């Protein structure tokens, strides 16, 4: 069957589309369906009642607050630290290269092994600091790799031109590097949010319980506990809400980037 060339090209997306559909879209639709039911074994539609229940639940609100706090504090820190480390490592020659190689190390260590070490270091600390530290420590490598690659691919001529105009290193980086690498920086920020959600694994291992201290009680704890109580409806409703929130967040970022351009 002779297909037109561009049709063949269009068909190339098929495997990816099939996979995304099967394992991301369809499941999300299913979750949406489950979120408007009364129960897994009581298939009546109660529409938005589950959402109301979840939103008015004080522990969901606590979990939301904690998660937002985590994102609001950790992601900028993550970004800042990543920028600092990558930028400075480019100046530090051999040591810089060493630090870059080192930074990726924590990402590849299985959480189980490391949580024990962190438990030792943060034994008496009664705040969310240990979890923030674990997050930063483990995932900074990814940010560093992406940003180093981005920074090192800026054409050196631009810097030459700027230096001839008399710009110092600080101004150069603030006005050239950062704007030029806006896209990778935005991507790193999004990655930061993704990893924020992944810290549930480490947090769970760290506290070893389904009900951690109040300051560490994030959305996934809420969702996991609902799951264990067989209350899938609350879990589905909160999942849908998170996804919509994230969609808004991404839209905001892309919008701002488009505006800046």
């Amino acid at each position, binding site marked *: 069957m002779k297909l037109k*060339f561009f049709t063949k*090209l*269009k068909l*190339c*997306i*098929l*495997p*990816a589309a099939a*996979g*995304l559909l099967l*394992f*991301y879209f*369809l*499941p*999300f639709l*299913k*979750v949406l369906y489950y979120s408007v039911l009364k129960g897994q074994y009581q298939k009546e539609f109660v529409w938005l009642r589950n959402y109301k229940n979840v939103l008015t639940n004080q522990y969901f609100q606590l979990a939301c607050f904690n998660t937002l706090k985590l994102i609001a504090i950790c992601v900028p820190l993550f970004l800042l630290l990543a920028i600092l*480390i990558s930028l*400075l490592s480019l*100046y*530090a020659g051999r*040591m*810089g290269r060493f630090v870059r*190689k*080192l930074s990726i*190390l*924590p*990402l*590849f*260590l*299985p*959480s*189980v*092994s*490391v949580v*024990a*070490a962190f438990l030792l*270091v943060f034994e008496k600390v009664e705040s969310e600091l240990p979890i923030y530290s674990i997050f930063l420590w483990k995932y900074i490598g990814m940010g560093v790799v*992406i940003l180093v*690659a*981005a920074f090192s*691919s800026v054409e050196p001529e631009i810097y030459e031109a700027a230096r001839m105009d008399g710009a110092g*290193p600080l101004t150069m980086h603030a006005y050239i590097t950062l704007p*030029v690498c806006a*896209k*990778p920086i935005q*991507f790193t920020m*999004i990655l930061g949010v*993704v990893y924020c959600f*992944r810290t549930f*694994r480490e947090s769970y*291992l760290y506290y070893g319980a389904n009900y951690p201290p109040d300051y560490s009680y994030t959305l*996934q704890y809420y*969702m996991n506990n609902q*799951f264990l109580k067989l209350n*899938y409806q609350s879990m589905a409703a909160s999942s849908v809400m998170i*996804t919509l929130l*994230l969609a808004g967040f*991404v*839209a905001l970022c892309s919008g701002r980037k488009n505006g800046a351009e």
Partner: protein
Amino acid sequence: MAKFFGKILIHIFQLVIAVCLLLPVVLTVTKATLADFFSVLVEEFWFYPKFWFSLGIAAAIGIGSVVVAVLAAVGLKFGRIKHVKGILFVLLLLMMMPLQTTLLPNYIGLRDLSLLDKTEALILPMLASPFAIYLMYQYMDSVPYEGFEAARLETGSVFRILCSVILPQMRACIAAVFVFMFAEGFNMVEQPLYFVKKETLKPLSVLAESLTSANSHLIFAVGILCMIPMLLLYGFYEEELTEGLGHLKA
């Protein structure tokens, strides 16, 4: 003078960072005694099969997701598809969806396809990775359209164009995606816990579950051993990785 001083500061900063990064690693290493390594590598016969199995799955995921991502990126970039920006937005969104959201429906889906408790259950869901596709597309954006046009004049076969023109330029990105997906596959925890029940099919990352309390000290040794393939991989491909990720621009 200021420059010299600045350089020292920079080096000190790097040193501090290095120490912070290393500290937990060192703590972990010190807890793994030589005897532990010996017992894991020589005595406990579960380690090698699990190790190679984990490696196998991670490699399969790496290669599979690269193939899928390359095809998707080619299709998106050159296939004259409308609303590419919209698709990219959706990809970003999918990347951010936490795993727990889709856990139950994926379980049901796999069960209805009777893929549960098989290796495919661990590999298939990871093949279409939004991260990989997004990255590949961004990189492919830097491939000049002219090369593609020229190749198109030569042949009508997509496969040939792919192999001769596009792939050689994408080497960096392919390496990058492979390394990241390999890391994901090697470290995944939730999927094996929920989709697979047979002990033999559980990779190393779910070790905490299967190690009895008598053997819990082995966790540290196993952790170090897990790090090694990743380190090697990263060591070999660092250049490609850096280049690949540098092209994350419009």
